């Protein structure tokens, strides 16, 4: 990817309205304070990578964005709509936000094609033929159209995760959330999933990605957010965050990550 293209894209993003706004978000699991005053804006078209040690609240954070978890204090606005107990607002948000899980969570009793067409047909009320054409288009983009008639259990982990990405894309979301998409994969399958995600980033999709894949973060992210113990400790462009960590916590984390690789 050329630097000039990057610069153009970033410039376009600077004045775009924020796709996601989190203002002083707090969450507790019982007595455990898992999110502490998290304030974060994600611009339309921005690619954000969230990293941090396990238990730092990064998964909880992105699960709060489409309300798989509820926050107790603060406000979260997605695409201008505030998350609340209002079910209609929630439906509207979930239609615009796609999510990819660590454990794929494909529906094992449906074929790959049915996995991809279910939500467009029943949530977007798309005609079946149109939904199938759309699904095939995305399955081709993630390079597995030939598996459309198979069941998830017949596919490898990497293929399943690519289907999960296609399934989310079939809803034509404005924002994509990735919750450690490669953590459950064998090393040789991580690459194919990351390539798919890089391809998606090149289309200008707004992405929030919890991952430890530093290479991916460097290649794709506009901004890296480092979380520890429920709060955002550092953030900035990937080079800055990875090369010049300012806090000991991030230094420790980076040394552990590098040792692990």
């Amino acid at each position, binding site marked *: 990817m050329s630097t000039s293209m990057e610069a153009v894209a970033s410039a376009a993003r600077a004045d775009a309205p924020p796709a996601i706004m989190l203002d002083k978000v707090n969450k507790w699991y019982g007595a455990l304070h898992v999110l502490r005053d998290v304030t974060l804006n994600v611009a339309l078209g921005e690619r954000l990578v969230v990293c941090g040690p396990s238990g730092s609240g990064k998964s909880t954070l992105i699960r709060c964005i489409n309300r798989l978890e509820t926050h107790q204090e603060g406000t979260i606005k997605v695409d201008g709509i505030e998350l609340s107990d209002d079910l209609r607002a929630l439906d509207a948000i979930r239609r615009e936000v796609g*999510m990819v*899980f660590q454990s794929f*969570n494909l529906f094992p009793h449906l074929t790959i094609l049915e996995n991809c067409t*279910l939500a467009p047909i029943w949530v977007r009320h798309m005609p079946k033929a149109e939904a199938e054409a759309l699904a095939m288009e995305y399955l081709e983009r993630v390079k597995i159209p030939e598996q459309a008639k198979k069941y998830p259990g017949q596919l490898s982990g990497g293929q399943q995760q690519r289907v999960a990405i296609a*399934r989310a894309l079939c809803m034509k979301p404005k924002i994509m959330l990735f919750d450690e998409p490669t953590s459950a994969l064998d090393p040789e399958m991580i690459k194919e999933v990351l390539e798919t995600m890089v391809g998606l980033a090149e289309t200008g999709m707004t992405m929030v990605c919890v991952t430890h894949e530093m290479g991916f973060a460097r290649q794709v992210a506009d901004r890296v957010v480092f979380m520890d113990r429920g709060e955002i400790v550092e953030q900035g462009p990937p080079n800055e965050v990875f090369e010049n960590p300012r806090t000991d916590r991030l230094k420790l984390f980076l040394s552990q990550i590098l040792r692990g690789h």
Partner: protein
Amino acid sequence: MSEAAIPTAARSAPITLVGPIAWVRTNLFSGWFSGLFSLVLLFLIVKWTLGFIEWGVINAVWSVPNNQTQACRDLKGTGACWAVITEKHRFILFGTYPYEEQWRAFLSILVFIGLFIVSAMRRFWRKELGLIWIGALTTIGVLMWGGVLGLNYVPQERWGGLVITLILATFGLAFAFPLSILVALGRRSKLPAIKALCVIYVELIRGVPLISLLFMASVMFPLFLPEGMNIDKLLRAQIAIILFAGAYLAEVVRGGLQSLPRGQYEAADALGLSYWKKTGFIILPQALRLVIPPLVNTFIGFFKDTSLVLIIGIFDLLTAGKTAIIEPAWQGFGIEVYLTVGFIYFCFCFAMSRYSQNLEAELNQHRVR
């Protein structure tokens, strides 16, 4: 390294003993003790089989003239008196249903069996099946009650036999199953009132024997009704059975719901599916497939539990059989009658069991790699 590596040549599996003789040798005569044991068992099996054939076929009396059971009594137990079945089969199957109208009850049984067969075939699993059920059950109602289309009216008190068993079991499970799904979902509801209601229902109904529920339905329930109002006894028993089966099935279904990983709910939520769409397309199809064995176990149990209605004086298949041998001329031929009744129950239960195994294999194809 890769160019140097030569794949190991594929070998065939180690030779195992094959063929029936090898099977017999390894499984029945692997040592002197197992050999002796096999021989003793073989002897007993042959002896009992021959004994049963002698009793049930060779020495059996198949019919007697005008209730003269002397021929049967002369056998002194060395042969079966199938004459009791020849004589009483219509009573066992149709109870006290008027003799000349019994073709209607017979037709109802055929409609029931046809309904089961159609429902069992997956190609009929669509919306029209609901209409088929309504049509079939209406037909059975018209046939049994009559009073329209030139059919004579037959009050419910005169119905009996296999028809009653099929009515109780079919209506019972047809209503109890959907009820149980709602209750199982309700027990996992986030709304405390709905959850409490479902928990109370299950615990209350499960905590009492079916017999006491049937007694309540037949004796106590009418006391609460306003004077002059009367609900059919069969209907009351039917409701008791539905409520009882519903509570048990609800727990089976709940087991299936709980065995689904949370990720399935979350993935459906994240795609924006509403609660009912999530439940209908993602959760129930998987949960119910998982619980086919315990579900059918409960179904079979309830098919036979319908025979408990005898204690409130409803003439089901078993009661009809029991009543058939009350007549002095036929007293003492219980074995033949109970064998026959048992065989009828077995046919239905075995069919359910076999069908469920096929269904399980067919519906769980996605789990086969």
